[in-house]
């Protein structure tokens, strides 16, 4: 299908506002190919099937809308966790604030250094997983990122990495427009935990390509920063080898626009992918629009996938969930599960869900469910009848609602930190 002229114009306008970083042969080729992919599909527009619920215009326009910096006195998340910190300020790596990038069983390199090398293992991954993830659904913002990303890290785990690698995204410039691209490779038998937190920029485009070798183990916990006016489009492209395990959890509180895409392919037998997310939006604190778009492909036997997404929305906040499980021919004994639920705390908030199953194997077990509901008045009364004030009782029920998603975090210190974060978030609203 020919791309509409308005889309092409939009795409060229965006491209003309960007400069492609200088890279070596292979990297330059990867960027050029991504640019060609982008030009072939054009940037997203509202009429695209996977953008019907989320208006992409502020993500595609040439200049990033400004986003005021958010300040509160809450202690930074993961602060008590022993981790290796890698700090980006408005999308630019800041060595002064970062730890030394040295840790046993893992190599960590800056993307620009990697791209200046004639040969590097990242060549097999940079833009490769993203390109594979462009079909059957186009993800133009990811191609844009591959072409123009200005910073990022390239991580390769070769054994059990003793402490998490923590990417901290600080936002200092209310007009910053950041494009960051990471590559993660977990080798056979290796294990890595990646943490991400912070608003990153006024507008943040983040792509992470994750490749798990057979028996690789990867955990990902992310919180997206509380700046009310920030915008983010993130893509995770993951390819899972045999018996590998992938677990991801994302917490989003605040943000005028967030689009989180997960594109995961289970390509080796007996692999497992768990993707979970919790989003809390309060329209009274500024507009809130949060979109989880997930595409999981089963392309091997006896793999398991699990999607658990929860949204708590109030005062006109909008939540979107588009989740798909695709079971390819031959992917027998697939076990796929998907649940997306929203808790609407008033009549102004909106939840839009599009669950999809597409199955081409005959011996599989796949289930999905989606619900939208209000606070359970019976449970609320029960709590109040025991002396718990209405607002505290409501928060208790909100936390209970979200807990199924948080329970996907394997590390109890990290899940405790997330729960604590949520309680603070809710507590601030109670006082406000």
């Amino acid at each position: 299908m020919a791309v509409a002229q308005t889309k092409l114009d939009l795409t060229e306008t965006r491209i003309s506002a960007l400069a492609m970083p200088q890279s070596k042969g292979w990297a330059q080729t990867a960027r050029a190919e991504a640019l060609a992919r982008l030009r072939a599909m054009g940037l997203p527009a509202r009429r695209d099937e996977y953008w019907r619920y989320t208006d992409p215009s502020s993500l595609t326009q040439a200049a990033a809308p400004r986003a005021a910096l958010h300040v509160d006195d809450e202690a930074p998340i993961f602060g008590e966790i022993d981790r290796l910190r890698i700090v980006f300020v408005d999308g630019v790596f800041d060595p002064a604030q970062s730890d030394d990038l040295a840790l046993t069983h893992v190599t960590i390199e800056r993307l620009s250094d990697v791209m200046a090398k004639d040969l590097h293992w990242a060549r097999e991954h940079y833009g490769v997983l993203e390109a594979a993830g462009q079909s059957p659904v186009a993800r133009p913002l990811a191609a844009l990122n591959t072409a123009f990303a200005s910073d990022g890290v390239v991580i390769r785990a070769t054994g059990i990495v003793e402490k998490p690698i923590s990417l901290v995204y600080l936002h200092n410039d209310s007009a910053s427009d950041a494009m960051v691209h990471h590559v993660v490779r977990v080798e056979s038998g290796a294990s890595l935990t990646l943490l991400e937190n912070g608003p990153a920029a006024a507008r943040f485009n983040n792509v992470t390509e994750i490749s798990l070798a057979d028996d690789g183990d990867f955990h990902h916990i992310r919180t997206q920063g509380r700046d009310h006016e920030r915008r983010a489009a993130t893509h995770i492209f993951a390819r899972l080898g045999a018996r590998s395990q992938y677990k991801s959890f994302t917490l989003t509180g605040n943000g005028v626009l967030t689009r989180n895409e997960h594109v995961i392919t289970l390509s080796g037998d007996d692999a497992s992918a768990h993707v979970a997310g919790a989003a809390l939006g309060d329209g009274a604190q500024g507009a809130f629009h949060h979109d989880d778009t997930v595409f999981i492909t089963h392309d091997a036997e006896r793999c398991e996938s699990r999607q658990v997404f929860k949204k708590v929305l109030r005062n006109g906040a909008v939540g979107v969930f588009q989740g798909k499980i695709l079971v390819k021919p031959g992917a027998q004994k697939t076990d796929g599960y998907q649940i997306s639920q929203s808790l609407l705390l008033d009549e102004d908030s909106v939840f839009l869900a599009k669950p999809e199953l597409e199955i081409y194997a005959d011996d599989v077990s796949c289930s999905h469910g989606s619900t939208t509901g209000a606070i359970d008045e019976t449970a609320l009364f029960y709590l109040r009848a025991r002396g718990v004030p209405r607002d505290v009782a409501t928060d208790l029920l909100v936390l209970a609602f979200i807990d199924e998603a948080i329970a996907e975090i394997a590390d109890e210190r990290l899940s405790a930190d997330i729960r604590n974060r949520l309680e603070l978030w809710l507590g601030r609203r109670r006082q406000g």
Partner: protein
Amino acid sequence: MLTIKNLHVKLEDEDKQILKGVDLTVEAGRVHAIMGPNGSGKSTLSYVLSGRDGYTVTDGSATLEGEDLLAMEAEERAAAGLFLAFQYPVEIPGVGNMTFLRTALNAQRKTRGEDEISAGDFLKLVREKAKALKIDADMLKRPVNVGFSGGEKKRNEILQMAMLEPKMCILDETDSGLDVDAMKLVADGVNALRDSGRGFLVITHYQRLLDHIAPDVVHIMADGRIVKTGGPELALEVEKNGYADILAEVA
């Protein structure tokens, strides 16, 4: 302790009068029972007293130690010392039983201007009370009432009552869904709380619970009113002859 005068209540959503002038006084240290056929308004009375939404008081009053219950939020009534043991205890997935008990206890203390209980003291207290009711550590850890049997749910209600130490306890058909052993356990729990400073209102269909929790006063409720009041012998009369004779007599 609890004084109800001429209480008239209708459903909020429809023009249906449920309580048509209830007069009742429960003194401290006494156990009153309310019996009555289905639809007589017994459970409505318990809900209205505890502050559930969906009812409109059209006339009359209800006070706890002179304080106007009907002017308070449900949580304020609880903090003031009113406790309702639910006929159908509510399951709350995702909220641990211990968290629930501690949150409730501390919320009441906070409302009354008292200090929160320490984690250590709380644990000690809950273990002691749970043991008497044969509630094991697993039941305390699980989400509130989720997957509990009928008997476990009712024992959990009595545990909450024992922890919160209310002044006025209303038991709404606490015997429903209980076998004889479970009823004995629940009754023992209630009897352990009988105290000169505490009042009880036991709502039940059947006399059998009253074999275990001996009432001082028995009321018969029908069509939104207390139609007859007497001693424990009134419950035996109901057990023997049913409600028909009594209702015919007062009609």
